[in-house]
């Protein structure tokens, strides 16, 4: 099937860091600018082979999730971005994950240049730390306060309006 001479390839194979292979529809893959760039480059060279894209930074667990997201969004690609149904799906999609998964997903979205997924993850994390006090944020994310009391006071002073 690989040698079928359709003018452009409709499928690509993506390899995760733990060496699992994912066969992906081109429209789905194009949701990631990184994959899209690889496909475009290969097609410019006129290859008829199956395109194999290794992703050294993304595990198969996370890649499955990114592709699930891409698949859903590829379905809605022609629709306008304000689609309520899609927004609802996005929210449900992220809600399921624990924080570690969310973090890896964010990094993968960044690495694979899937801008809308990156925005979504960042907004989700931002919403979860919104309205928390500095102490709470430090505690939740285990951030060590390495300032001296004097330094801390200086910072507060410099942007006093934000620390009312």
């Amino acid at each position, binding site marked *: 099937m690989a040698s079928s001479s359709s003018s452009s390839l409709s499928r690509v194979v993506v390899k995760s860091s733990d060496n699992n292979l994912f066969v992906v529809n081109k429209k789905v893959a194009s949701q990631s600018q990184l994959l899209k760039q690889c496909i475009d480059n290969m097609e410019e060279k006129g290859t008829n082979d199956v395109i194999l894209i290794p992703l050294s930074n993304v595990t198969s667990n996370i890649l499955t999730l990114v592709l699930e997201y891409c698949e859903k969004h590829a379905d809605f690609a022609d629709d306008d971005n304000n689609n309520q*149904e899609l927004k609802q799906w996005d929210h449900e999609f992220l809600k399921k994950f624990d924080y570690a998964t969310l973090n890896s997903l964010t990094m993968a979205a960044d690495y694979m240049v899937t801008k809308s997924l990156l925005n979504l993850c960042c907004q989700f994390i931002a*919403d979860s730390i919104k309205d928390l006090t500095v102490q709470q944020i430090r505690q939740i994310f285990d951030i060590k306060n390495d300032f001296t009391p004097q330094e801390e006071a200086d910072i507060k002073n410099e942007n006093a309006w934000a620390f009312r």
Partner: protein
Amino acid sequence: MKREKFAEQMDLISNLPDHIIVHIISSLPTEEAVRTSILSSRWKYLWKDITSICLRGCENDPDKFANLVDHLLGNCSSSSFLSFEIYFPDKIGLPRLNALICNALSHKIEKLILNIKTWFSWFPAPPLPNCALVCSTLVVLKLRTCFDIVIPESIVCFPHLKSLELCVILPNQDSVLQQLLCSCPVLENLSLSGYLDFCEVRKFDICVPTVRKLDLFLEYKGRSEISEYDIIINTPNLEHLSITDDSLSRFVVKNLSCLCHAEIMYESPSLEAVETKHINSLLELLKGVTKTLLLRLHFHTVNVLEKALSYTWPEFPNLVMLDMILSDESGWTCFANVLHTAPNLKVLILDLERMNTDPDEREPCVWTPPDSVPTCLLEHIKIIGIRWFGENDDELQAIEYLLKNALVLEHMMIGIPAYWIDEEVAEKLLTFPIASVNCYFQVYRRIHYKNSQNKIT
């Protein structure tokens, strides 16, 4: 509770690279983003790279607010912002305001949202600073202000602007709106809200070939002598049109061959005030949107239509989904007429919330069956949804009629507000004869519909 769950899995945000953290704090209100500077030395300067600014000037002291915006802009290292959103405090003086906006716009900004509350206190409105009109990087612009818009002639102000939302006192010079719209060669979404009371212009020409979505919100508070307005809509690529109008304007709608979604709320201050010319202008407006696939008629529109029973109504040959909001003022009187205008209708949604919001105060409504069974009912209607069923006799008769005559019905859904449910009425509903062989009949506690096209096919 969600946060407690987060707390159990600590030390994770710090694994993220700086640029992602910056992205995350850019999504916070700016004040909170700045506060992260105190978390630790790693975080001290991260906020300076934020790419979005959102400030609410709840500060009573406008000078203080202006200073902090200046300070903030002076400290941010980004020369371009994805989003810049400011809610200005009351009583900010015009010179300060102008200086602030110009300072902000010396950066490259993709999305600019300016909210200024002082509505009528400065009337007549001051002009919007010119620098706001030559910001060539803008993709989204929302102005909720009292600015008067004055545009220097013959310049393309917004070469990349795709979305424009104006909530303003409509410009008092003829042609200003037109000139503004001409300055947006790639505009796709246009939302225009305006108070017509003090508006001297009588005619608005909305002629934008690129626009795909148009929301018009025209309000007339009756502060001055009632005047007549002409709204001309000429948008050949429009897909989505929503009109909310309580000024009873005269609409001239041309060239809407791509339209798929139309929503109309045409409101008269009182039913007695509806005159022949208003009826004619509503029918004229409907004639302009006959190509649409989806139509939502607000109860105000239905109330005006009730006065138009003896007129000729336009036909909607493409209409597949109709969402009609009924009220107890006009009851079921024009229901039959509306169905007759949509011969190919597949999905019918009746929203009775307005009819049944206050059961004790409900005006008596009488079910009036159509003279002849509408074609769509006999041949096409597959789904009927009734929202906010109030268990009154007229509603039961309507449902009985629909079940008896909808020959190809597949799904009948009835939504009952959770707090009143009568088993007897529910039983009675289920004993009505159903003409269609394959009909699935359901009674829900609550029912919500999405105006989504995907649901139709």
